[in-house]
């Protein structure tokens, strides 16, 4: 068991390494960016076509009015949650191993929320009238319907998005100051100077900074939980069998953290390579994240079982029918893929050797996210094609290429934003890595006298993990 991070990295070196990521990434960066952009382009094309022709081209049909759009909406919101998990929850728990990786996690939160917000527009039949849903005083004297879970969504997502953006920014101020001090003139210099707000790291600034950061973190945790439970009410509040499920709020939150952590692993691996962050995004940290993910995977699996069990013993014929449909109906392949990816694949994370194997973990994390995407779809489609009204049961619904195109496009959109961010802003929190290194070194100094090297490291690692 090696240490999370070398304790003897000089602070100056930290600055250098991270600042280098703003200048010269590996060529892979540009490849990824190009691919992402083109995928996004495709999605955009599909959306324009759909806008012109009407929703019908997405091959949604009348009993089957929702599908991948809402699914992706939930997926992206879900993905955002683990960013908060790392940056807020672990911050409060003083798990300092999070420090090198929470910045990009938080960025991921922000951008996946933006992507999710896109789907609201994509999903609406008359997006050009979307302003009807905004609560502003208007000449119609009409207000949106606050009773609708969709509006709660909007409210929650808006709060979450803006809050986590602020959180991201506040946490970045000291690093922006560093960039300001080390950048030579140019638009970037101006940008950083502006954004650093004249931060100089005085004791007064640090004092208030600490308090603020802590407080906002405290707010973000209940917020994150509320957001996905509110999203779950879209279904839980409705009447349809398979959607009207009591355990949905926790189930959704768990699923959210799950897919988010998986996404973090993927991005961890990508950034580590693209920006040469081997020094900071070290394998022990990866191992910790993987363990965390595994734990959440088990929570999710458990809640899945709870849901099925509840349905089974609830003895509502309609509910039961939907469950059976999922298992043996036309959507069975996807359902079982979801179960496999969501509940079986994670066991690969138990193998200690694999926990730190980059390729394996990369593959696993992608599979997990596939599973989580299907999960969202499996909440919607089986129910709508097999609900209370047998006359309207249909099994012919299959998302058209347009619909798929838009969904994939959203991934392109997300990756583009994310990659641009990582190039423009330090994706590793410099000052916090410094703190980490500093505290570790202090600690080991104290410990040295007491115990032999290996033991200390062991103990450190354990301390870090909780």
């Amino acid at each position, binding site marked *: 068991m090696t240490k999370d991070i070398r304790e003897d990295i000089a602070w100056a070196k930290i600055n250098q390494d991270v600042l280098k990521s703003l200048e010269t990434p590996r060529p892979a960066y540009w490849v990824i960016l190009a691919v992402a952009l083109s995928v996004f382009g495709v999605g955009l094309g599909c959306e324009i076509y759909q806008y012109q*022709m*009407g*929703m*019908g081209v997405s*091959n*949604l*049909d*009348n*009993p*089957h*009015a*929702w599908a991948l759009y809402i699914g992706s909406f939930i997926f992206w919101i879900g993905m955002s949650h683990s960013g908060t998990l790392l940056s807020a929850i672990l911050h409060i728990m003083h798990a300092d191993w999070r420090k090198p990786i929470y910045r990009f996690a938080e960025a991921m939160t922000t951008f996946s929320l933006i992507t999710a917000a896109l789907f609201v527009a994509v*999903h*609406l*039949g*008359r*997006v050009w*009238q*979307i302003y*009807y*849903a905004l609560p502003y005083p208007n000449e119609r004297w*009409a*207000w*949106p*319907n606050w*009773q*609708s*879970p*969709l*509006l709660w969504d*909007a409210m929650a997502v808006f709060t979450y998005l803006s809050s986590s953006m602020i959180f991201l920014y506040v946490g970045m101020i000291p690093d922006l100051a560093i960039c300001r001090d080390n950048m030579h003139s140019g638009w970037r210099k101006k940008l950083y100077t502006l954004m650093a707000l004249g931060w100089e790291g005085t004791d007064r600034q640090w004092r208030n900074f600490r308090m603020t950061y802590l407080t906002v973190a405290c707010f973000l945790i209940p917020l994150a939980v509320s957001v996905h439970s509110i999203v779950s009410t*879209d279904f839980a*509040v*409705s*009447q*349809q069998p398979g959607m009207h499920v009591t355990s949905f709020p926790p189930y959704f939150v768990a699923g959210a953290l799950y897919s988010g952590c998986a996404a973090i692993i993927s991005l961890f691996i990508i950034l580590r390579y693209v920006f040469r962050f081997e020094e900071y995004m070290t394998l022990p940290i990866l191992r910790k994240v993987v363990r965390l993910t595994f734990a959440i995977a088990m929570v999710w699996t458990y809640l899945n079982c709870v849901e099925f069990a509840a349905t089974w013993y609830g003895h509502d014929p309609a509910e039961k029918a939907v469950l059976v449909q999922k298992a043996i109906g036309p959507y069975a392949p996807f359902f079982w893929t979801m179960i496999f990816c969501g509940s079986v694949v994670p066991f690969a994370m138990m193998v200690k050797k694999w926990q730190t194997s980059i390729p394996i973990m990369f593959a696993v994390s992608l599979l997990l996210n596939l599973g989580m995407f299907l999960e969202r779809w499996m909440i919607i489609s089986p129910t*709508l094609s097999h*609900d*209370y*009204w047998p*006359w*309207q049961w*249909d099994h*012919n*619904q299959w998302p058209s290429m347009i619909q798929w195109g838009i969904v994939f496009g959203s991934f392109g959109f997300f990756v583009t934003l994310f990659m641009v961010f990582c190039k423009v802003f330090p994706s590793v929190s410099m000052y916090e890595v410094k703190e980490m290194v500093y505290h570790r070194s202090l600690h080991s100094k104290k410990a040295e006298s007491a115990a032999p090297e290996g033991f200390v490291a062991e103990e450190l690692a354990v301390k870090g993990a909780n």
Partner: protein
Amino acid sequence: MGVANLLENWSKFRHTHPVDDHGHEDWMAYPTDIKWAMAIDLDACIGCNACSVACYAENNLPVVGKDKYSHGAAMHWMRIERYWDENEGEGDFSAEQGARFLPMLCQQCDAAPCETVCPVGATNHTEDGLNSQIYNRCIGSRYCLVNCPYKVRYFNWYDYPSTKDVWPSPMEQQLNPDLSVRGKGVMEKCTFCKQRTYTARNDAKTQGREVRDSDVMTACQESCPTGAITFGNLFNAESQVAMKWKAQQVKLDTDKQAKDENPDNGLRGYHVLEWLRPYPSVMYMERVRETEI
């Protein structure tokens, strides 16, 4: 209005609308002593589709054509559903006693699942007990359709007015001027022929009288060759529909009707899916079959 209004009328705002609101004096309850309701006698319904076609004629429903129909884009607000008697176990159907027809239209629920979930409030409860759908307010989130247990809401997946062969000239001259023609991305559904009830109430007001039972007929009721459909004001004790509901002891806001309470009371009135408690405004009367043949 606003905060002042909120504080003044708090108790009114906390009143549950509209289920327990008949005769409520507030401006929010049914002020017109009208609650439109329907009774459909399944023993009389022969499944001939006349009502459905009449609905097309009255309500400017687009003809979507084979391809779109196959993708579930049909726009029939009134659809005739045909169910078979099922042989238990074997899982196949028996035609011995013919088929069972069920005319399905918007049930105008009093506690409508669709109303609460619309983000823009495009579907509300009207003072005369209808479940309104405001086309130009709708932004097409389709939540109402997802939450409708009867699946009687129909979404405009395409822009039918501008689609070829939907209303080729001169067919558009047949369109009913009392209704909007719905464009793409709008949800629509049966309105109990709102334009007709409106005209009836309008004339009654002008003549300074209450709406009589004979004043208004829905298009489906008017055409139904066997008179299986009855429509009228439930609050008017003389109206056909009220008498039928009364005779069948069917209540609006219950999830179990008299015929289920006591199987021997010889009644046959019920609401479809009533155990979900949407409190539908349409009463169905069970089909009857001879036992000695």
